[in-house]
């Protein structure tokens, strides 16, 4: 059924067999400079079961490895915000645990972006409330910024700060009216794993732009356009430079050797939930969940055109014989059947998608258009968008965004053509892709994330507005007036916790 296997599976399995199982008592938190060995297979418990990470081609020493080694003044490393136990993102649980352990002294809470604003008193909990209560890192973007070629943007909109409980957008030194104007938005760390999929190009075009895929000026080659919430970098190397200066606080670029080693790690690491607390192994009884399928499958295929249908990993659980069912404990059976139904609902339960820039405009799908979750989350095995996935789901824009009194609120005024759905003025917590393109029609468009390892990395959405998976489903139910039944909601949640 999976025609997409590319790796010799036996070799991959061998690599795992030789790895010692990770000692469960080891601290799940990875501090910089610990010098642990990153094994070929690593597992961590979370509230829904067990997460598994696979490192292709076997174990790696992290001693001196630039992803794991502190750099810059704050003693931070990449791993500080991209934790293995949290599916290479950062869960709110881990954040709160580090605060309890070390308070503001933990490098995670560095003033630059681990606090609401660097000018606040750093010892106080309140100064780190966005990170501690919502899992959000401050992202400061120069405004107006530059395009991919380094030319200044000529935005067709203006930005005003309506209110800012973080204080940073109104700050004399860091704010929008400072000498070096920056806009501060607050975002969740995106998982650093499964990049084969994130970098894959399924088509030569970006239908949302009506143009071929963006060409990276550094290499002259097209790119998938699926990095970062606002698509501000085109490649993993450009991302590293951005991270080094923004998160690690050192302006010297990482040297070429460091970048190569980070890239090597990023391209070898796969992550997914492996075992469910209720349902057991997600690759049991013929199912194909877990990271092994990810590591060994071809990336970038559209589930509806040549690839495995999205989440058909769980098809076997739909087709269990009565004899097989009879062998399973009731809980396990119920869970597996629910996951299989959830996968089907994800693909087949349709609803009206409306006023969603990137989908209803400008492509020509129509406004509204009836479709399902898989319309946007369309890549086999990964559930991201095969095309560059900048879509305005409404998570950051009024009137669709959930109330978020803790976040800054901006008023965008379109100075050229009005926005295709919102008109001339837009209230937003995060202009998203518009900060990269300078176009008001892109306000609130956020790059779709991958959907693996979700159980390990709540809260969800770029601004952390969904505190758990049920809240994700409830958001969609409100946003698109879907009318899911309780059973459908449970099935979707069970599906997502098994990914």
């Amino acid at each position, binding site marked *: 059924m999976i025609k997409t296997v590319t790796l010799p599976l036996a070799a991959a399995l061998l690599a795992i067999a030789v790895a010692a199982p990770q000692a469960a008592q080891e601290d799940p938190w990875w501090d910089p400079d610990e010098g642990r060995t990153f094994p070929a297979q690593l597992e961590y418990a979370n509230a829904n079961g067990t997460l598994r990470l696979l490192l292709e081609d076997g174990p790696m020493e992290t001693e001196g490895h630039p992803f794991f080694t502190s750099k810059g003044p704050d003693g931070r490393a990449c791993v500080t915000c991209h934790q293995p136990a949290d599916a290479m993102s950062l869960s709110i649980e881990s954040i709160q645990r580090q605060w309890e352990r070390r308070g503001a002294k933990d490098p995670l809470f560095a003033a630059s972006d681990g606090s609401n604003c660097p000018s606040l008193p750093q010892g106080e909990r309140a100064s780190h409330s966005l990170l501690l209560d919502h899992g959000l890192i401050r992202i400061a973007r120069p405004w107006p910024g530059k395009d991919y070629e380094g030319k200044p943007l000529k935005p067709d909109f203006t930005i005003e700060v309506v209110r800012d409980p973080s204080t940073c957008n109104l700050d004399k030194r860091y704010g929008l009216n400072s000498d070096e104007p920056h806009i501060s938005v607050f975002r969740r760390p995106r998982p650093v794993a499964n990049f084969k999929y994130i970098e894959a*190009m*399924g*088509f*030569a*075009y970006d*239908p949302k732009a*009506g*143009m*071929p*895929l*963006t*060409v990276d000026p550094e290499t002259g080659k*097209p790119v998938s356009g699926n990095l970062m919430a606002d698509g501000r970098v085109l490649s993993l190397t450009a991302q590293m430079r951005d991270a080094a200066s923004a998160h690690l606080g050192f302006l010297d670029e990482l040297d070429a050797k460091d970048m190569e080693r980070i890239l090597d790690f990023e391209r070898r690491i796969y992550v997914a939930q492996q075992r469910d607390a209720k349902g057991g192994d997600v690759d049991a009884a013929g199912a194909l969940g877990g990271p092994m399928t990810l590591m060994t499958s*071809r990336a*970038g*295929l*559209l589930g509806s*055109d*040549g690839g495995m249908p999205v989440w058909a990993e769980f098809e076997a659980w739909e087709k269990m014989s009565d004899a097989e069912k009879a062998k399973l404990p009731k809980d396990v059976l119920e869970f597996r059947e629910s996951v299989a139904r959830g996968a089907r609902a994800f693909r*087949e339960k*349709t609803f*009206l998608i*409306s006023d969603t820039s990137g989908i*209803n*405009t*400008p*492509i*020509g*799908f*129509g*406004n*509204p*258009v*009836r*479709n*399902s979750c898989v*319309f946007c989350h369309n890549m086999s095995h990964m559930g991201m968008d095969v095309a560059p996935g900048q879509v305005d789901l409404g998570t950051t824009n009024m009137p669709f965004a959930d109330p978020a009194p803790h976040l800054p609120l901006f008023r965008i005024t379109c100075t050229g053509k009005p926005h*295709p*759905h919102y008109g001339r003025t837009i209230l937003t917590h995060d202009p998203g892709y518009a900060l990269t393109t300078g176009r008001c029609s892109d306000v609130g468009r956020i790059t779709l994330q991958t959907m693996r390892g979700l159980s390990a990395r709540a809260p969800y959405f770029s601004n952390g507005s969904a505190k758990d998976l049920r809240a994700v489903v409830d958001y969609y139910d409100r946003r698109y007036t879907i009318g899911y039944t309780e059973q459908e909601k449970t099935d979707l949640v069970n599906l997502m916790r098994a990914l």
Partner: protein
Amino acid sequence: MLRAIILGASAFATTATATAQEINFIACPVYRDTNNGRKSGCWLTSDPASGTRYDVTAAPTKADWNKAILVEGFAAPDEGNPCGATVMQPVRVSILELPCTRHMLPAEGYEGRRFSLPTRNVRPLYEDRKRPEKPYAKGRFTIPFDFDKTFITYQISDYYLDATINYALDIQPALVEITGHAQTTPRTISGETITEPAEIAQERADVVRRALIMRGVPEKNIRITAARPGAAPYVMEPFDGLKSPLERRVDIRITPQ
């Protein structure tokens, strides 16, 4: 012979007969939510001149329920009645910047159409594409546009753009000559006089030029040439026998060097 290389022109037979009258009008669209799987909804709209309600769902560009549309097409009464209105096919819809009150109808027993992938779709990179054989022929291509738009629309303009670019890439070195066209003669439709600004011809040519370069066609081999007024499109097939969209296009000639 040329068209056979490029497009297999007979693949898209139109249902219009030679005698059928092309119907053009501007009106607000109504969405009928025929809940019959993905993309199954219907787009209906009434010609203000006759009051006849048409089903314009077959247009590559679907409507926006907040905006008026320009409809250009043929009535196709033999195409059944899946949506509760006379089917138009072939038909083109262009979204205009004229506000409409949004309105949605329930299915009312109509089934709409089950979605099937349109014949004009860009193939993924993971599928092998057939390369042209030597000796390379001159290639002529035409890319259609919606009214007053330079956007490469999904599953029509992109299909022809992709064919153009692939041919240009496959037979390099080759000279690529691009000519943009615009509908600059005012037309009065449903009481609105509409016309495209002359500059849009150049903008369309620029879009195609940029796309060619982005896909790797050498810039030095691309020229933009001026339109000859009244010239016919290089290829008629993208218009499915419709006359009124003919001037909204880009023509491309690719000459092997």
